[in-house]
C-alpha cells in the first residue's frame, strides 16, 4: 500500500478485491466510450477525407441539380448522375477568363466494381487534393494518344493490374457486365500513387475511349454516323466534333480565388444551358449539416451509453456500501476523518471511470489499427491518425469527471454513515 497516499492505496486494494465486478463495470464504461470515440473518429476521418479530396478545386459544375447531389455523384461517386451537360458548355467555361485549369468528368460506368472516370490528361496535371498536393504516378504515365487507362492505387492493388496490361471495359455500373467487348481493350498506361481519397478507387480513361465503349456496346445510343470509330485519345473525332456530346460534370481551378463567386454566378445564370456551379467547401458544409443529424443521433446514443455505464458503476458501488460500513468504522478507528472516507469512495469511482475510459481509448486504438486498411479499401476513407490524441484525452477527462460526479452520491452516503456509526460496527 502506498505510504504517501493512503486513500489511493486503499481504493486500489479495495477495487482489486472486487475485481470481477470492477472489471465488468470498467468494461461497460470502456465499450460505451469506444462507441463515442468510434463515431467521432469516423465522423472526423470522413470529413477530413472528403474535404481533402476536393480541397484543390474552386468550382464544381454540373447540370442543374442540388449542390450536395452534384458533389456526391460527381466527386465521391455516391449515387448516379441524372443528366449530363453539353461539351459546348464545358468548352465555353473552360476557356473563360481567369480559369487556370479545367477537368471534364464523364461518369456512370464501372470496371469490376470500380468507377470508370472518363477525363483527360488534365486530370493528372491539374487535380489537387489534400490542400495543394498533386497526383503522382506510382508507375507509368498519363493517357497519351489512343485508348488508355490509368488506375487509382486501390483499384490497381485490389485488381492486381500493372502498367502494360490490357483491360476490357464494359458499359454499365455492375461489377461484372453482361456485355464485354473485345473490340475495346485498353492498355494500362499508368498507376497513381495512393492519395487516401476517392481518387484511389477509380479507373481513369480518356473521354473518347469511354465514348467508343458506349457507342459500340449500345448501338441504339444515337451515335452520329461515323463516330463509332472514335476511339482515339484525341478529343477531335473524325466527324470534326471536338469531343464527346456530353459529360457528367467538370472541375474548375481559377487563377484567383477572388473570381470564384463571380464565375459561379455566371455559370448558374448561363442562358444556353441550365447549369449548377458549386464551391465544394460550401457544398460539403451543406452535406455535413444533413449527415450531421444522423451523426449527432449516433453520438447521443453513445453519450447515453456512457451514462448507462457510469450508472452501472454507481449501482455497483452503492450495493457494497452497507457491507462496507464495518470497513469505514475500522478506518475511523485508526484516525481516518469522515472527509477521507468520502475521498476513498470518490477515488474508487474516479479510478473505475478513468480506467474504463482509458480501456475504451485503448480498444479504439487497437480497432482502428486493425481496421484502418479495410476501411480505406472499402470506403476510401483514410483514418489519418490511429494513435490517441487530445480529443481522446478530453473524453477520458470528461468521463472521469462524470464518474466522480456520480461517485459523489455513494461517497456522501458513506460520509454520513461514518459520521453516524463512528467506530461502532453495525452489521
Amino acid at each position, binding site marked *: *500500500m502506498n*505510504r504517501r497516499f493512503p486513500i489511493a492505496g486503499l481504493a486500489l486494494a*479495495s477495487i482489486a478485491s472486487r475485481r470481477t465486478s470492477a472489471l465488468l463495470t470498467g468494461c461497460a464504461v470502456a465499450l460505451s466510450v469506444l462507441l463515442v470515440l468510434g463515431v467521432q473518429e469516423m465522423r472526423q476521418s470522413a470529413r477530413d477525407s472528403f474535404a481533402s479530396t476536393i480541397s484543390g478545386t474552386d468550382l464544381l459544375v454540373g447540370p442543374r441539380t442540388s449542390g450536395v447531389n452534384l458533389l456526391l455523384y460527381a466527386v465521391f461517386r455516391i449515387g448516379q448522375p441524372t443528366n449530363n451537360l453539353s461539351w459546348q458548355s464545358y468548352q465555353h467555361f473552360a476557356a473563360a477568363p481567369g480559369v487556370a485549369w479545367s477537368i471534364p468528368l464523364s461518369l456512370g460506368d464501372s470496371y469490376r466494381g470500380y468507377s470508370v472516370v472518363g477525363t483527360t490528361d488534365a486530370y493528372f496535371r491539374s487535380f489537387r487534393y489534400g490542400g495543394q498536393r498533386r497526383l503522382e504516378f506510382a508507375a507509368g504515365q498519363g493517357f497519351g494518344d489512343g485508348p488508355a487507362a490509368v488506375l487509382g492505387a486501390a483499384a490497381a492493388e485490389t485488381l492486381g493490374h500493372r502498367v502494360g496490361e490490357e483491360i476490357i471495359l464494359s458499359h454499365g455500373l455492375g461489377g461484372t457486365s453482361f456485355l464485354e467487348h473485345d473490340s475495346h481493350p485498353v492498355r494500362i498506361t499508368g498507376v497513381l500513387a495512393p492519395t487516401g481519397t476517392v481518387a484511389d478507387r477509380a479507373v481513369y480513361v480518356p473521354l473518347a475511349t469511354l465514348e467508343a465503349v458506349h457507342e459500340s456496346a449500345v448501338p441504339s445510343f444515337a451515335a452520329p454516323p461515323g463516330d463509332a470509330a472514335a476511339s482515339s485519345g484525341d478529343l477531335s473525332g473524325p466527324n470534326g466534333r471536338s469531343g464527346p456530346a456530353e459529360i457528367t460534370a467538370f472541375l474548375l481551378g481559377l487563377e484567383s480565388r477572388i473570381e470564384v463567386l463571380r464565375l459561379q454566378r455566371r455559370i448558374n445564370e448561363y442562358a444556353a444551358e441550365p447549369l449548377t456551379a458549386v464551391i465544394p467547401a460550401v457544398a460539403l458544409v451543406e452535406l455535413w449539416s444533413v449527415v450531421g443529424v444522423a451523426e449527432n443521433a449516433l453520438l447521443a446514443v453513445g453519450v447515453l451509453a456512457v451514462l448507462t455505464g457510469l450508472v452501472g458503476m454507481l449501482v455497483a458501488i452503492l450495493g457494497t456500501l452497507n457491507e462496507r460500513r*464495518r470497513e469505514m*468504522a475500522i478506518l475511523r*478507528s*485508526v484516525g481516518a476523518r*469522515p472527509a477521507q472516507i468520502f475521498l476513498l469512495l470518490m477515488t474508487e469511482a474516479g479510478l473505475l471511470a478513468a480506467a474504463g475510459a482509458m480501456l475504451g481509448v485503448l480498444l479504439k486504438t487497437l480497432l482502428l489499427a486493425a481496421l484502418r486498411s479495410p476501411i480505406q479499401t472499402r470506403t476510401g476513407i483514410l483514418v489519418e491518425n490511429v494513435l490517441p490524441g487530445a480529443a481522446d484525452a478530453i473524453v477520458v477527462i470528461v468521463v472521469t469527471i462524470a464518474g466522480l460526479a456520480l461517485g459523489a452520491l455513494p461517497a456522501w452516503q458513506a460520509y454520513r454513515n461514518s459520521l453516524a456509526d*463512528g467506530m461502532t*460496527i453495525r452489521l
Partner: protein
Amino acid sequence: MADLPAEMRTPPVLAIRDLEYGWTAGRSLLDIPRLDVAAGGKLLIRGPSGSGKSTLLNLLAGILTPRAGAIRLLDSEISALSATARDRFRGEHLGVIFQLFNLLPYLSILDNVLLPCRFSRRRAERARATDGSEDAAAARLLAELGLPGAMDGPVSRLSIGQQQRVAAARALIGAPEIVIADEPTSALDEDSRAAFLQLLSTECERAGATLVMVSHERSLESLFDRVVPMSALSGGN
C-alpha cells in the same frame, strides 16, 4: 475510589470530569462525575450490553462529544477539540480493538497491521524508531502475539482468534499511549480468551500503554489491575 500510590504520583492518562452524554436533555444516557486512569494502568469496565459501554468508548475515542463535562486524554482535552483534531488525536495516540471483524478484507495481514501508520505520521515514526522499520515493527508484534511469518497472506484465511491478534498488533503498532478494546474476546472460546488477554496485557505493559477494555464477562477480571462496573461509574466511582 482508592487510587494506588504509584498512580497518584503521575498525572492520569485518562481523566473524566462531570461527563454527561445523552440523546435528549434531561435524561442522560451516561453520567460520569469522575474517572481517572493512571499511565500503564489496566482498567476493565464491566457491564451488560446496553449499559452504554460502547458509547463511553466512542466518547473516549473522540468519535462522540459529551453534552457536558470534559474528557482529558494525555495532555489534551479531547472533548474540546475540533472533529478533525479528534480524528488526528485518535490516530496518533489510540489503538482500538473491536469485538469482531477488525480487519479490512482486501488488505494483507501486514497492511492491516500498518494501517495506523498510514493515517498517523507519529505512529509510523515511532514504529521506525523502535524497530528500524514499520514492517519490522509489525513483524515483531505479530511474532510476539503468536503469529510469526506469512504477513503477506490474506486475512480471510485467519481464524477469529488469529484475526483478533492481528487487530491487537494493529492497535499496538507505533506505541500509542492508550489501547481501547471493545469486548475483544467475546467471539473467542474460553481457552483462547485468557490466552489472548494475557498476550494483549503483556504487550501493553511492554509498550507502556494504558489499556481500557469494556466487557460483560467476569471471568477475566484477574488480568486487570482495576475493574469498574458500568453502574458504579454513574454517580461517582
